Structure formats: C-alpha cells, structure tokens
C-alpha cells in the first residue's frame, strides 16, 4: 500500500511539474528576452534593461497598441451581442434541434480560418456579393469600399472568433437553473428585469471567459488583419509578427507581448476584485 501511495504522488507531482515546465519555460524565455537587446548574429543579446519597454512608449507604438485594443474590444462586443441571444436560444432548445444548432456553431471552426477569411473578401469586395446585391436593389449607386477598412477587420475577426464566445455562454446558460428565472418572475420581475438582475449576474463567469477567449486572440490574429485590413498594421499581432519576421527585433516584440499579458492579468484581477466586492457588499 505504501508504494501504491508513493506511485500516485509521483504521477501527480510529475504531471504538474511537466505542465508547469511546458507552460512556463517559453513564457519565461519571452519575459527574459524582453529585457535583452537585439544583436545581428544571435537575434537576442541577454541583459537587463527596460530599454525595450521605453521604446514601446513611443507615440507610434502606443498608437498601434491602443488602436489594437480598441479594435479587439469592438470585436469582443460584437461577438458578445451576437452570441448571447443565440446561446440563450440554444440552451433552451429541445433535442434534436439543440444538436443541429451546435453543429451550426462548430462548422465555421471546421473550415480553415484563413480560407474563410479569403471567402470574406469575396463578399466585401467592390465587385463582391454584398455590393452586387446593394447595387442590384438600387440601394447604393456606387459600390461601397468595405475592404481594407477597420470594419472589415472587425467583421472578419468576429466571424472567426464567434464560436469561442458562444460555447462558454452556452455552457453557462445551459447550467443556469430555470428555477431562478421562474423565482424572479414569480416575485414580480419582468423578463427584462429578470435578465439584468438574475440571468446576467449568474452567467457572468461564462461572459468573462467568452470575452477573454475572444479579446486575446483578437489582438493576435495577424493574418485576418493582413487579408482584410490591407497593408496597415492595425493589430498588435501584426506588429509583434513584424518584429520577429521582418524587422528581426525580437526583444521589442517580446516586450510588446509581455506588456499585453500583463495588461490582461491586471484586467482579470480588477474583475475578480470588483465582483467579490459586489457579492460581499450588495446590502451595505
């Protein structure tokens, strides 16, 4: 029995150590790289300087960062507003409809996302489907210039990332006990009040994880921005990619990446703090 327990402990410790190594070492490397400097032969010269972070505070770099966060925030909002009603319908639907609709959500995930991004160009082009329809119906006289606009990038990203928003929302809404909604209605709350006072607070974990699953990749999906946004490096992802691929300034790219991670961590901590304050002091 002793050896059995020892074996079990060894497996647990081993697995966790391996995961920690797997998850952390590359992140630590990126973290260390952000304090080094670029060198022609080795890409990175180890060291400790905040030089790269100072460079990020450049007006031009800051602009890229802010516009990237804004764009990704917009994508997250579009996904949330689209996904919430759909997830709600999904969670309440009966079988087999629920399965069919879940497949509907998974399908976009099946086709290669790059291919779908190109398919978007076929829709948004000056000679594309949307313009053809609008011109044919006489709604517009001139074809609309939709390609290579921030709007096109937002639409492309939202399309690619929507399943990541729907799935956690669906899980949260499906787990939500119908009795809470009934209790709220029973106590005199209209459907709208029930939604804001009961459904939203109780599905907040799903909302937060959905937003995180959309917001973060939204910043990094450089190829969507490449295809639909044209030459302009709108996303931080494109900027970082360029530092690694084109400019070969790895430390600057690493610094940008670390800053982004730190920013997310701060946001998450702020959310936790505020939600626990809300819970503890709702009557005080």
């Amino acid at each position, binding site marked *: 029995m002793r050896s059995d327990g020892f074996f079990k402990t060894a497996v647990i410790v081993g697995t966790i150590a391996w995961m920690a190594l797997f998850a952390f070492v590359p992140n630590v490397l990126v973290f260390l790289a952000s304090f080094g400097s670029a060198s022609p032969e080795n890409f990175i010269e180890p060291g400790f300087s905040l030089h790269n972070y100072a460079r990020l505070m450049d007006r031009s770099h800051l602009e890229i960062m802010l516009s990237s966060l804004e764009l990704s925030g917009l994508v997250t909002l579009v996904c949330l507003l689209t996904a919430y009603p759909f997830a709600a319908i999904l969670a309440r639907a009966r079988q087999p409809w629920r399965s069919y609709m879940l497949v509907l959500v998974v399908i976009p995930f099946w086709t290669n996302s790059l291919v779908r991004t190109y398919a978007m160009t076929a829709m948004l082009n000056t000679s594309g489907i949307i313009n053809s329809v609008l011109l044919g119906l006489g709604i517009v006289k001139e074809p609309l210039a939709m390609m290579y606009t921030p709007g096109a990038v937002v639409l492309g990203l939202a399309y690619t990332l929507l399943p990541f928003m729907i799935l956690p929302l669906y899980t949260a809404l499906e787990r939500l*006990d119908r*009795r*809470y909604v*009934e*209790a*709220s*209605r*029973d*106590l*005199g*709350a*209209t*459907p709208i*009040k029930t939604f804001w*006072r*009961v459904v939203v*607070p*109780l599905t907040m974990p799903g909302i937060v994880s959905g937003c995180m699953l959309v917001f973060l990749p939204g910043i990094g999906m450089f190829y969507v921005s490449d295809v639909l946004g044209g030459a302009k490096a709108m996303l931080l992802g494109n900027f970082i990619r360029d530092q690694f691929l084109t400019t070969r300034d790895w430390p600057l790219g690493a610094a940008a990446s670390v800053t982004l991670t730190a920013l997310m961590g701060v946001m998450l901590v702020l959310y936790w703090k505020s939600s626990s304050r809300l*819970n503890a002091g*709702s*009557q*005080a």
Partner: protein
Amino acid sequence: MNDANVSSPTIPVVSLHEVSKVYDGQHALNGVSLDVQRGEFLTILGPSGCGKTTILRLIAGFEKVTSGRVYIDGQDVSGLPPERRNVNTVFQSYALFPHMNVFENVAFGLRMKKRTEAEIVSSVGKALRLVQLDGFEKRMVGNLSGGQQQRVAIARAIVNRPLVLLLDEPLSALDYRLRKRMQLDLKHLQRKLGITFVLVTHDQEEAFSMSDRVVVMNDGHIEQIGTPAGIYEEPRNLYVARFVGEINILNAEVVEQSEGSARVRAQGLDVTMRTRCAFAPGDKVHVLLRPEDLRVETLKDLAEDPELGDSFAGGRSMVGTVEETIYKGATYDVAVRLDNGSQVMATEFFNEDDETVYFRAGDRVAVSWVEGWEVVLPHEE
C-alpha cells in the same frame, strides 16, 4: 392590474375549471376542476408524476393551460405572466438567488414593486423575524443550512403578502426530525398570516397533519377532495384508500342489501356492514379495514377467557397464523396469514399491563374488528 388584496370574500381565491395540460402528447392533467377557499390550507397529495406540481405551476403562471381556465380571485389569469399574478411560490429546491445575501433575496419582490428603502428594511425585518432568521440579513444563502434556506424561501415569498402561497414539496429535502417540526411551524405561520396556502406533497402524514382540505390525485385527475378525516375514513375508491395509509383489502360478495347496510360474505364470514353504495345480491365488493381497527387475540387466550371469547364470537372473526411483528415505537404491526391464504396487517398498541410485544411468529390467532369501522367499495380490477 387590479389590487388583489381588496377582494370579495365569497368567491374562491383560486379556481380551476376543466383544466388540461398536455406535454409531448401526454396528458399531465386531464380535466381538473378545483376551488381553493380563502384562508384555507389545501394540500394536493399524490405520487410523483401524478400532475400535482403541474397544478401549482399553472396557478403560478409558469405553464399555460392546454384547455380550460384558471381564475385567481375571480379573474381569468390564463393570459397573465407570473409577475402579474398575486401569488408567490416556495420552490422545492428553494431557488434562492446565489449571488445575493439573505436580505437582498427577501427584498427582491419589494424592489420589483418599487417600495421605498425604509419600507423594504422594515418589511424584510418583519418577515425574517417571522421565520426566526433575524440577524442573518448579510449572510450569503450558500452558507446556510437546508432548514435555514427553507425559511429564507418562505420569508421571500410571504414578504410580498400574496393572495395565495404555493409550496412545492417544501419539506422534502429536510431531515425527518426537521421536517416534522417545520410541518407544525408552517401550519402556525399560515394561521397567523391568514394567507391561503396550497401545498404539494407525496407524504400523506404531512398532508393530514397540516391541511384543512386534501386533494388526492392520480395520473392527471382528482380522485377525491375532502377533509383529512373524511378521506382517511371514507375513501372513495381503492386507490385513495391505499394511498392515504396502510389498509387491508378483503374480497367479498354481497348476500343481501338493505337500507344503508348490506349483508356481505367475506373470508367465510357472513357480516352485516354499513355502506352508502347500492349493491345487488351477488355483486363482488371489497371490504377495507385499517390495520389500527383490527383486533388480534391468540386462540389460547380466547379459549381461557370466556368474556374475551364472547366479544370475538359476533361473526366477525377470522383465524390465521402470525408471520412477523414489526416494531414501530409507539405501536407494533402484526402480519397475519389467514387460513385461506390472504395476509392482513394489524396495528397493535402496547397495553398497560404488558410492555412487550405480545405476539410471536407462529402464534395461532383470531382477527376481528370494531363493528361499523369497515368500508365497503364496489369491486375494481
């Protein structure tokens, strides 16, 4: 929306007219009509799946009738959503909002009615005192025991002073002891508040000890409505008789029928029995006897004690063998296999002279019963 607190005392507070409810092509309720009187404690009793919870949900407005009408306080509420009905529900699982503390849970209904903060604080305080939970205002509901959550659920409902309080098996998740205590507490609360209570349960003891009237349901329809004593002593059919307590059912045949009584042959006995039904000679009937109405004596005692023997000689005595005795605390049950093969169960009380269980497996006994306490029903199959 009319103010339902000001209303006529003569019309039923809740009324169901020929209500049916179909789920997936299956009748959950089939033509149910029921009037709930103002201020009464009504219990709907039945096994799971009999449609009793569906009635509650139709009154609360969580479901819509397939056909028929539901009236609350004389008003047809078929089209009204739950938030516009002046009834409140205590859910089986309590359904307390986990993201709110006790105060906010209880205050929820008042906030929806846009009461002032001062009014809310005072009303919530009163409601929590009624369920003996003052001082628990700031506790999160997840940290409360089952019994405490139950009382918060009651406070959250009664704070709105509903016309009717609907309780969906509110005690089923509690321990045996706690459940017994809450039964009395609920009954007293109902009297104190004067609110009409409609409770759903599958526990006949619970129904009897709390209610003014009991509705016995089976498979989507009502079998019998009456006072607890009426239902226990005069069940309308075998289903009700079996559901509201242990019962012995003897098959018998009518020999002769006269005004209000019938001569019946059962288990080789020829007995005159009181009955309200009309039978023809030769009709098959059931004779129902409650275990506590049966008297059991050993053949040995009857032989030794002539007086006792006489009281068993009135023609109402059957002979058999004791199979087992089951101790129940205040009483004990004796299972007797009659000589003709059928089994009867008798409940015996401990008597003053002899505290121990008197019968042993294998004892030869005679079983009799108190005259007039039997129920005769037409044969069912």
